[in-house]
């Protein structure tokens, strides 16, 4: 039982980045949930569509007949044949719509629709590292990034920054902390105010946080522009005069203006051309070294993530499914989802590409509205067994500093290929954790 306890402990506290020395995380996320309530919707059970049409038609006939009879009784029914036809058809149409809605009310069922964008995520980010967060669109990676910065309402859970729980701060206290926590946006076209000059865009946070004013502010803006590789001459220009890559540099300069400690980079290179992507990645890397920054680098581009990150967290439908060092994730992924994800990345080498055996996943990512129960990935997983539909797999340390959420593997049997079919060595631990939690 001791290994199980150790595993439960490991889930709560991610291990230190450097072996032996336990470092305090800069940002610690504990059991974070971000749910969006889309309200209640009445839905028809599949196969009841025909019943609804029959009911609506009957309702429409009855309603139409009643109205026409009333109209005749009170003398509002037109005399001409074509006008009668027109009025009757019109009344029938409206009656059909009304009875259709009524039918849904009677034979339908209320379903509360919740988008579980982030669903119980625990993660530590250590000072000076780049943590890559990767996943398909709709998996909640951007929501997680924004929730850390408190740009979204957290449903439950805690986000600690240097030991202080950000989710409990008042908005005034949070404003003080905002200086240390910055965001770089994906869309370099939408995230800059088109009516402000570059100087104003980059300088605005200096005034907001009362860091510098006037001459001093101008000097700092010039400095920042040089840091990100933009000429000082551009200071009076407007965003539309710049290309995507240059705009991204402006966004980076603005984020840097307040001397942040931690930056969430939300798909910072996705909208850029290949040759410009490399420039921006190198810029971010250089800034990290020079200014001792810590990044949460969010991207769907696995090649970019591999290049910039020290550690990588893989997310699927609101949950973390694997966390490990970047090299480990790519060379030795444990989760079937991670394996498929990495195998899907096309390699720019025709010879290797021809020789490669690719794992092609069936189907699409399920909707995050009322996602599948048990393991979220079970609908697409080639290794699915019945238990996967019931048990929510916890993130367990399978190998040292390598976490994965899959009941079909365990520290004793980490290779899913070698696990006997139908067996689930991680099941006991998962059950123990489910009971403990």
């Amino acid at each position, binding site marked *: 039982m001791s290994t199980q306890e150790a595993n439960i402990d490991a889930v709560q506290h991610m291990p230190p980045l450097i072996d032996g020395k336990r470092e305090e995380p800069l940002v610690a996320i504990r059991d974070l949930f971000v749910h969006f309530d889309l309200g209640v919707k009445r839905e028809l059970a599949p196969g009841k569509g025909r019943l609804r049409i029959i009911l609506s038609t009957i309702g429409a006939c009855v309603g139409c007949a009643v109205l026409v009879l009333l109209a005749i009784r009170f003398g509002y029914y037109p005399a001409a044949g074509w006008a009668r036809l027109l009025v009757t058809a019109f009344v029938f149409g409206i009656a059909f719509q009304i009875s259709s809605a009524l039918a849904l009310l009677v034979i339908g069922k209320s379903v509360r629709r919740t988008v579980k964008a982030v669903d119980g995520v625990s993660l530590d980010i250590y000072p000076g590292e780049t943590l890559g967060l990767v996943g398909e669109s709709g998996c909640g990676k951007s929501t997680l990034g924004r929730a850390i910065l408190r740009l979204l309402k957290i449903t439950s859970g805690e986000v600690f920054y240097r030991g202080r729980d950000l989710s409990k701060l008042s908005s005034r206290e949070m404003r003080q902390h905002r200086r240390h926590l910055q965001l770089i946006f994906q869309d370099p076209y939408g995230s800059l105010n088109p009516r402000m000059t570059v100087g104003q865009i980059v300088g605005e946070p200096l005034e907001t946080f009362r860091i510098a004013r006037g001459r001093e502010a101008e000097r700092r803006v010039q400095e920042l522009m040089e840091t990100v590789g933009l000429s000082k001459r551009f200071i009076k220009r407007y965003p539309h005069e710049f*290309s995507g890559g240059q705009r991204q540099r402006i966004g980076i300069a603005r984020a840097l203006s307040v001397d942040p400690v931690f930056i969430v980079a939300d798909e910072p290179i996705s909208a850029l051309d290949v040759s410009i992507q490399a420039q921006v990645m190198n810029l971010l890397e250089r800034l990290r070294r020079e200014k001792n920054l810590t990044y949460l680098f969010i991207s769907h581009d696995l090649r970019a993530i591999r290049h910039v990150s020290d550690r990588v967290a893989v997310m699927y439908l609101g949950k973390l499914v694997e966390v490990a060092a970047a090299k480990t994730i790519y060379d030795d992924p444990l989760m079937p989802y991670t394996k498929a994800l990495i195998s899907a990345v096309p390699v720019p080498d025709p010879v290797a590409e021809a020789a490669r055996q690719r794992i092609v996943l069936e189907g699409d990512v399920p909707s995050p509205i009322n996602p599948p129960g048990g393991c979220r990935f079970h609908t697409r997983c080639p290794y699915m067994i019945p238990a996967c539909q019931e048990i929510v797999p916890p993130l367990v340390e399978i190998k040292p500093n390598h976490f994965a959420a899959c009941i079909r593997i365990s520290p004793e049997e980490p290779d899913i290929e070698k696990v006997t079919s139908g067996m689930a060595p991680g099941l006991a631990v998962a059950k123990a954790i489910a009971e403990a939690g």
Partner: protein
Amino acid sequence: MSTNNGNVLEVKDLRTYFHTEDGTVKAVDGLTFNLKRGETLGIVGESGSGKSVTNLSIIRLIPSPPGEIVSGEVYFRGQDLLKLSEREVRSIRGRRIAMVFQDPMSSLNPFMKISRQLMETTELHLGHTKRQAREHAIKMLETVGIPDARERIDNYPHEFSGGMRQRVMIAMALSCEPELLIADEPTTALDVTIQAQILELIKTLKRVTGTSVILISHDLGVVAGMTDQLIVMYAGKAFEQAPTRELFATPGNPYTKGLLRSVPDPTDEQGKLYQIPGLPPDVAHLPPGCPFAPRCERAEEICHREFPPFVQLTAEHHSLCHFAREVFEESAGGGSRTQQH
């Protein structure tokens, strides 16, 4: 006249210019290539390099004005598409040459059931009756791997996910068994796992039907696994043109080399990523010499002064560079060195 030696498409010196207030933009400037039956040609380049305009020129969908196909010949099965009347082109477009675009949502009519949209093509081009067209549409949806095709055919585009919509687009494109399929960034809007599905699908369908494909992409990884031949475009020009394997193994152009090096290699250890300095050029105001010269590492005085020649390196390998041969030999040497590792 064109020869009909197994080439589905022969493009000769295609030039498409856009006349704007800002000057003439030479979006495609002198492109020549041949495409054999069953082969796949890849066109890569950054945004604004002219790869999509090439595709639109071939199928004569350039908005005019401001666009104009200034010169060139596009022989499709021996017939010059640029000389045909609008009506004749329409009978080829959609039937013998089909297109798949990047954004499936904006290429499908959101107000029409997909059954209607799929049936329209075959009713128009193959003269199917409603019933035949419907059966054919269901068969096509099954071919591209849409589950429950018989039920889903009466759905509207918004009821499908992005990957499924792209499958519908492919089903529509292939429903008349075209001889040429032009896919313009077909997977750019999709997730990697869905991208893998779609690429696999195009590969399979190509093998089964023998269709020739032009695949336009900005992703070198995508074209590496999919194409037989490759054209690298920059500022409207074909900077390099070669069989895919040869181009990746021994690039003969500094731009291609730079592009290949600026893609992070997952198998490689972390280090500084190679970056091409500067920005893609403004195509309306190109510098007098080589358009890549301001960003090029090995640019010399001549590059800024004179437009580079189109150098033939091997039988099928061409490169637009003053120093094409040197670059080619360098990468041949470097290539064998990396292989020894």
